[in-house]
């Protein structure tokens, strides 16, 4: 598993070549990724596809400058050419010869795989899609369209650098999603369910695709009865396992050391301060076995780890990549990630979540006179400098007199990160992880997980159209 797929002697010579112009640090990141995807739409398995990407990215650091080049040619000649390109991009310094001795790191396996997805017949995956299609439509004439997809990937990486590091990892991921369109007098509405993990096909031991499909159909049908969401500031209760994106956006990004050190985060210089309600303990944990954001090592070769970012409301630590940690004399935290060998690593989250509180979820709703209950949040985004963030309500209901009442049409919620963290006044005891996500930053997407117990925010702005 952790076997290097390029000869370590070749890598040593490439690294030596990369620092031959006097640069202080060089790194080779090689990746071999195979993907399979099947998609169903309009009752048909429209397309079965598969692909392979294989290549290496070479990074050379010289003072404040990073040179980077990548190539799909993994021969020694191809790698040396990329090394020269990266070195000349980071030009400067004195030439010299350095030998690079590599020491293989022990494997760090956090998500052992039972059933590799490439051992599953494509016909089986086809059958799962058709089953989901049938389940969503069955007995529901108002469901007018269903789409579903199943995908898996097997990604082997190898990282070596001039500090002598040589590490490898294999990341296997499986995901499934289904969406339904319902049509009625009020127009069309959509429902969606998705699951995924850094896991093999055993994912489907815990999840039945028919149940997921029925869930998506149910959500679309419910929304046909929805009325316009209210507008303005009000209490918002977020169901467990559906709102981790709130923390990902509201504070996770602001705790990434690259943004912090450029002064582009509201959390810069605030370590040790109370930045959230004392109810909140926020963790980023790449070792969470089987979760979508789990990794054995990060894309700079550092083993994944559990990092407590906020403890009882106090900011304890930021997340780091190699360059920022080195510059500021901090330990790496296993958060240096990249989309592929064609990208430079930067500070990224893995699985980000809030630990349990003590309240019964039902009590949280009962304690809320008027407000909104969000049963599923959609994607979001944040301006890390101001802390202003936004995310979508995919499924939401009105709360009236402590009861969940009518379904609401879609809309955005908006708030300010630091303010919302202070405004969380009730925290449930029903922690759950959420659906798989892709976090985008600076044009790169990486798989991330999130989670939280049911909670209440005293005031958020709901962006509906009703008065």
């Amino acid at each position, binding site marked *: 598993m952790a076997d290097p797929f390029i000869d370590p002697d070749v890598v040593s010579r490439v690294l030596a070549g990369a620092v031959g112009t006097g640069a202080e640090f060089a790194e080779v990141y090689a990746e071999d990724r195979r993907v399979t995807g099947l998609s*169903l739409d*309009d*009752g048909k398995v*429209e*397309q*079965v*596809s*598969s*692909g*392979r*990407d294989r*290549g290496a990215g070479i990074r050379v650091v010289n*003072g*404040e*400058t*990073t*040179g*980077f080049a*990548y190539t*799909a040619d993994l021969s020694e000649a191809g790698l040396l050419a990329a090394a020269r390109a*990266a070195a000349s*991009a*980071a030009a400067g310094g004195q030439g010299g010869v350095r030998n690079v001795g590599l020491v293989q790191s022990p494997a760090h396996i956090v998500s052992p795989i039972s059933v590799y997805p490439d051992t599953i017949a494509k016909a089986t995956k*086809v059958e799962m899609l058709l089953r989901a299609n049938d389940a969503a439509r069955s007995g529901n004439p108002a469901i*007018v369209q269903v789409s579903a997809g199943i995908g898996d990937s097997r990604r082997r990486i190898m990282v070596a650098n001039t500090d002598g590091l040589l590490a490898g990892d294999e990341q296997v991921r499986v995901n499934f999603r289904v969406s339904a*369109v319902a049509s009625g007098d009020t127009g*069309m509405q*959509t429902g969606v369910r998705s699951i995924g993990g850094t896991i093999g096909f055993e994912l489907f031991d815990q999840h039945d695709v028919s149940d997921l499909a029925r869930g998506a159909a149910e959500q679309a049908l419910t929304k046909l009865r929805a009325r316009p*969401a209210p*507008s*303005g*500031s009000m209490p918002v209760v977020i169901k467990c396992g559906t709102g981790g994106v709130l923390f990902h956006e509201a504070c996770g990004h602001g705790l990434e050391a690259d943004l912090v050190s*450029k*002064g*582009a985060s*509201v959390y810069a210089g605030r370590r040790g301060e109370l930045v959230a309600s004392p109810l909140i303990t926020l963790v980023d944990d790449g070792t969470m076995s089987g979760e979508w954001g789990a990794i054995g090592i990060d894309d700079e070769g550092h083993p994944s780890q559990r990092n407590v970012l906020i403890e009882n409301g106090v900011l304890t630590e930021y997340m780091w990549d190699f360059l920022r940690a080195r510059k500021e004399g901090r330990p790496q935290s296993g958060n240096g990630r990249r989309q592929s060998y*064609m990208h430079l690593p930067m500070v990224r989250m893995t699985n980000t979540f809030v630990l349990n509180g003590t309240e019964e979820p039902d009590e949280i709703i009962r304690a809320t006179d008027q407000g909104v209950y969000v049963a599923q949040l*959609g*994607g*979001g*985004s944040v*301006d890390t*400098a*101001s802390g*202003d*963030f*936004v995310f*979508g*309500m995919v499924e939401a209901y009105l709360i009236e007199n402590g009861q969940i009442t009518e379904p609401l*049409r*879609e*809309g*955005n919620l*908006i708030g*300010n990160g630091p303010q919302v963290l202070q405004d969380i006044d009730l925290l449930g005891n029903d922690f759950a992880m959420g659906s798989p996500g892709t976090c985008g930053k600076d044009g790169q997407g990486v798989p991330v997980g999130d989670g939280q117990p049911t909670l209440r925010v005293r005031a958020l*702005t*709901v*962006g*509906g*159209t009703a008065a």
Partner: protein
Amino acid sequence: MSELLEIADRIAAQARPGEQVEAYVSRGTETSVRVYRGEVEQFTSAQSEGVGVRIIRDGRTGFAYAGTLDSGVLNEVLADARDNVTFGTPDEYAALASPDGVAVRPQSLWDERLEQCSTEDKVRLALDLERMTLAGDPRIRVDSADYADGAGEAAVVTSTGIRSSGRENGCYVSVSTLADENGETMTGFGFAVGRDPFALDSAKAAKEAVERATRLLGAGKPASRRTTVVLDPYVTAQFLGVISSTVNGEAVAKGRSLFKDRLGDLVASPLITLVDDPTDSRAYTATEVDGEGLAARRNLIVEGGRLNQFVHSSYSARRVGTVSTGNAVRGGFRGSPGCGCMAMQLVPGNRSPEELIASVDDGVLIQMVQGLHSGVNPVSGDFSTGASGLTIRNGSLAEPVREFTIASTLQRMLMDVAALGNDLEWLPMRATGLSMVIHDVTVSGT
């Protein structure tokens, strides 16, 4: 170029009886420079290439790709696609495009001056942009200043007679800014796009990045109300991006468009005339051929508010009994083509943005929206997005506002368009921008 066509020819020639085979082959180079505080922070220089093969047999579709053009791998990709084809569901409409006789309108998508631009010049462009931006206002910091360019060539050949190829290059500079005052920080951005690096308007990029950040300093939340909004050209272009999925022929064929039964109906204000025209070389996404290798063409989607046509790939066209409008879109060799708008353009109005603002008694100029991907549902039409901008009072710009949402439905917003500006702006998106006034939008703030 001829080399890519030859590779694609060789793959398509291997089609067996009963098979349609399409080979899409591409190769590209890119350079990017990021500077910070007067020094190069990152410099990337890279080349990439790959092939995607689509096979259709008995109405089933299989696809495979590889990120290399190694001759040994090409046959593997063909074999993988052939294996994949056995598992799909037969679809009587599945087929590759065939030549339709529409002539390609030649365009200038390649600029030699970019080829001749030295590494030193590229670094200088990024450094100049950072310097100009910092000089714009003492409250401004620069988060990053970038120069990036790319050049690519691609060929698509099918066993049904399509054979096309093309190349293009382009470059841009962009800067993101932070403005500090009284312990609060606001962000901004600016960019300039083109094919000739020496013609990029860095001064305008710097000015916009400074303005966007500084004019939000001191912003509060607006009062919740129904009011008039004026969309900045950049925001209008994003809005058009949402509208595009409602006129997508594939969404229409599959019953996923809210306009599916509305051809010929008045769906927008009579002020709205919308074309999709990738044959206009000024557009960032201009192209000679679409993702299936058919000639790109100008399509009139909405005329005077009336829905005139949808856009189609050959597949969506076959499903609804019409012909392709040259709107197969393809993201590269890793995927097969879908259907979509390529270069949308609103026919401009005749008033300047200043005149439009002067015509509004009470409203908000929307400078930026946040969360279009999460709060807008193009199937139901629900529209809700985070926003920031400036209050408009008695025809003049007043205090800045942020942390609020604007909401309506796509259907209503199109009908409620009250005026269009004459400030057509070419943006690095699939749509151009101009200022647009929309009545009766819900603002949620305090």
